[in-house]
């Protein structure tokens, strides 16, 4: 029996399955929308998800190019950037030598682009949108218009941040105060900083709209039989992420408004009394009469968002990886409920650890101790998740598909990122490694080794559902092995130079510090790793776009998965997702190798149990 026929045979809930927003069921199958409505101003969650995915993929290369500017300068300081990147940088900014301004802009925009335009839109925007209705058995999002708006709200942010890099003042006017943009440095910076703040505000607006939509959809529009504890962990992760986004993002938006007021309208929320302003420009204006603001206040507001944001950037990937691991181990996820509780635990604790970014920022050391304790504790749910993933593999029947390889890489790399976090949580150790390359190593093991590996796993996994075709798996394995090797080549050594005392955000640390000069060979190796890592992603980009049109046609359920997007929604999935009636969920998402399933090793969520069988416990 094929899975879709199971869906069609299930009970007809057509009379009461329609959500509040969508009462048109299959009506859209009869009139194909025009190009504009289908691809640009689409209200279909699947198309909006693809829009997010494609744009964030393209931004990945902008962010990567900016990172290579940074890496080149650290590997070959003072030498012109070679090759096509050098030519591009010269065409854009008139020089291929990396001076202080270009360098500070490059790492500032690298982080901003990667966080606001790549990781968050890719994990939450793309896969959140694409997966939620399909996985919970809904026809679309609760607010399709708001959903489209959340995508198009990203465009002002795209334009503003791009514009900020190309102001008439050159790189001297571009945002260069780091992605954290701490005042007073950001308060006295060039005009690009204002555009940056406004851009972040728009990106935050987009996130909030998405979060409202996801929460509402998951709470009110789960299909018949889809209880909360029958939802796949992907949906759980995005649900809890959305709560984080919804509660935390307004705070960073407010901080950017206050910062912009300080910059443009003469307020001084963050500017204390008695500063020597304009020193960098050689003006030396003494502004004793302004001020009264607090520098540390901005850091509290910023990290109150940006620490939860770290979890916004990792929790969805944890969800994807859980699903992929279960499918390709052919086993139920080990400890489904503890997984849900630990996601919630991470989210809850995630709100009370922000101060660990400020251990050295003049905060009361007693307060630092409190944040140290909560930070130590947040390692616990992450450890539980890791052990549960390992136990999911235990006695499984592991299929090493490309998505599985990336999911396993996630687990392996996330362990490193998690363990290195303990060095920072430990306050006396943090005193030494704070603001060094150790931190850079940690964040990249979590955000590249974690989030991005998870996003790759999800892309390879759901691509057949998105486009009805498989990606090329030969290229996929090549992408996997090269990424894993060059990623570790790049970032492992950062732990070493960080402990060695190489501080970050410096354009030429070798010049003034002999002890860092000895780390130049290590930095060259990292730069070579970064270049290989960057070019490897081109394989992925090529594979992605080629497979959209030329990939092998995918069958309905190529992975033998249980969840509704594979078992109930046809491929290609029409507007409205499911046939005339919504699929009915009878069990949890991970009933692989269940004795109930007979000869198969999967048991679709929407397959009705045989007559007279006892109700499933899960």
């Amino acid at each position: 029996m094929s899975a879709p026929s199971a869906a069609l045979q299930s009970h007809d809930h057509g009379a009461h399955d329609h959500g509040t927003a969508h009462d048109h069921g299959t009506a859209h199958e009869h009139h194909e929308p025009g190009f504009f409505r289908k691809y640009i101003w689409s209200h279909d969650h699947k198309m909006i998800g693809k829009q997010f995915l494609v744009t964030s993929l393209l931004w990945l290369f902008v962010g990567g190019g900016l990172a290579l500017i940074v890496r080149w300068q650290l590997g070959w300081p003072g030498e012109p950037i070679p090759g096509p990147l050098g030519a591009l940088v010269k065409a854009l900014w008139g020089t291929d030598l990396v001076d202080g301004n270009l360098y500070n802009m490059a790492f500032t925009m690298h982080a901003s682009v990667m966080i606001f335009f790549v990781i968050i839109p890719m994990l939450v925007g793309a896969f959140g949108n694409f997966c939620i209705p399909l996985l919970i058995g809904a026809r679309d999002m609760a607010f399709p218009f708001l959903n489209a708006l959340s995508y198009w709200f990203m465009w002002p942010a795209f334009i503003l941040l791009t514009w900020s890099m190309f102001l008439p003042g050159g790189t001297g006017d571009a945002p260069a105060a780091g992605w954290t943009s701490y005042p007073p440095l950001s308060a006295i910076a060039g005009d690009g900083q204002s555009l940056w703040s406004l851009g972040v505000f728009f990106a935050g607006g987009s996130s909030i709209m998405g979060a409202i939509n996801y929460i509402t959809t998951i709470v009110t529009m789960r299909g018949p039989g889809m209880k909360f504890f029958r939802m796949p962990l992907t949906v759980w992760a995005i649900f809890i992420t959305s709560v984080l986004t919804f509660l935390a993002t307004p705070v960073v938006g407010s901080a950017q408004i206050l910062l912009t007021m300080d910059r443009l309208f003469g307020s001084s929320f963050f500017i204390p009394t008695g500063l020597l302003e304009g020193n960098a420009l050689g003006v030396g204006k003494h502004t004793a009469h302004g001020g009264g603001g607090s520098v540390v206040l901005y850091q509290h507001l910023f990290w109150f968002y940006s620490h939860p944001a770290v979890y916004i950037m990792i929790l969805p990937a944890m969800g994807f990886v859980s699903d992929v691991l279960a499918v390709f181990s052919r086993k139920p996820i080990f400890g489904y409920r503890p997984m849900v509780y630990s996601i919630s635990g991470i989210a809850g604790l995630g709100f009370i650890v922000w101060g660990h970014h400020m251990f050295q920022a003049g905060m009361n050391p007693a307060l630092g101790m409190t944040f140290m304790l909560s930070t130590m504790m947040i390692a616990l749910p992450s450890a539980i998740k890791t052990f549960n993933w390992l136990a999911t593999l235990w006695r499984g029947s592991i299929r090493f598909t490309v998505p599985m390889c990336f999911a396993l890489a996630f687990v392996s790399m996330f362990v490193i990122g998690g363990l290195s976090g303990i060095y920072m949580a430990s306050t006396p150790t943090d005193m030494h490694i704070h603001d060094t390359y150790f931190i850079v190593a940690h964040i990249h093991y979590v955000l590249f080794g974690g989030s991005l590996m998870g996003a790759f796993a999800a892309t390879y996994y759901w691509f057949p559902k998105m486009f009805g075709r498989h990606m090329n798996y030969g290229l996929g394995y090549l992408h996997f092995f090269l990424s894993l090797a060059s990623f570790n080549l790049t970032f492992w050594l950062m732990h070493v130079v960080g402990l060695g005392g190489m501080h970050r955000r410096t354009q030429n640390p070798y010049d003034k510090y002999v002890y860092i000069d000895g780390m130049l060979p290590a930095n060259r190796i990292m730069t070579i790793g970064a270049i290989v890592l960057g070019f490897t992603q081109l394989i992925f980009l090529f594979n992605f776009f080629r497979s959209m049109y030329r990939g092998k046609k995918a069958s309905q359920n190529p992975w033998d998965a249980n969840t509704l997007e594979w078992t109930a929604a046809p491929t290609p999935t029409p507007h409205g997702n499911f046939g005339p009636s919504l699929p009915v969920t009878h069990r949890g998402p991970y009933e692989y190798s269940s004795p109930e399933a007979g000869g198969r090793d999967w048991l679709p969520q929407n397959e009705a149990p045989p007559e007279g069988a006892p109700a499933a416990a899960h």
Partner: protein
Amino acid sequence: MSPSIRTRAARLLALPALLAAASLLTAGCSGDPLHLMPEAASHEAHQVDELTYLIVWLTIGTFVLVQAVLLWFLWAYRAKPGVRASHTHGNHAVEMVWTITPAAILVFLAVYQMGLWSKMKSTEVPQGIEGRKVPVQIMARQFEWYFRYPGADGQFATADDLVRQGDLVVPVNAVCHAELRSLDVIHSFYLPHFRFKQDAVPGLQTKLWFRPVKLSADREPVKDRLGRLVKLDYWDIVCAELCGNSHTYMAARLYVVSDADFDRYAKGEAIQVDDQKGGKRAIQLAKWDAGAKRGEGAFWTAWSHQDDQTVKGPPKNPKHPFAAKAGEEE
């Protein structure tokens, strides 16, 4: 709980327990056996290194364990024809074990380090720390460090204060009790060889202390990019917080000298240090008000103005709407 699970759980537990014991044993032994960190030159740096190594052993142990288990499972449970995965949803006993074990380790770590943190970040010199007290004011600006000494009267913000940019001199085994400030943006006062860092936050006067135990002239040679050993006679002072386009050049030097040398230096006499070109250079404190005469008026006014705030109360701006009218004052 099946016996096989129990033995596996025991195996899972045995290794971390062994590692923890091993790490506690090695913690007291030698400073930096893996040469991970720059040379330690303060009393507290050695204590930080001990803690670091405890974490190093714990995390390396966990890392090896988890990755080995992962690889073992990947090999042992790869898909084989005719072999079906086992159907299990979890096991409470095992899950309790791997929840409680890391929790215990993390709580232990958290409690273990509290003492060192509160000692190192104490704004006053903690009780029980002996040694000569040397007060210094550290002022950061883009992209320079200034160090001010109180002069003969032992008071800051008086006419006999002495100041120098770029070189901080303290006597060995003394307790340097410093006040850290910034005049423009955030900087961070980072002593890699002391494992010490504190942000210089505009608007805050942050008290800090450190205790050098090794003469900077005795610093071990460091390797440069070509692997050549370079002899240096100072400890590095690094600005570790992004402070603008020349952030990378905001360095200073900490000279830890004998008591006798320091006494001469603190009186305003010159002392000789290496110039790193094979010769010597003299470093000497300048009179506090000399900066104004050198045409750096705004900078010295701003600094003096901060003195006024801390020493003489809040600033008085006659144009301010809430300012006391002439004659009402005092």
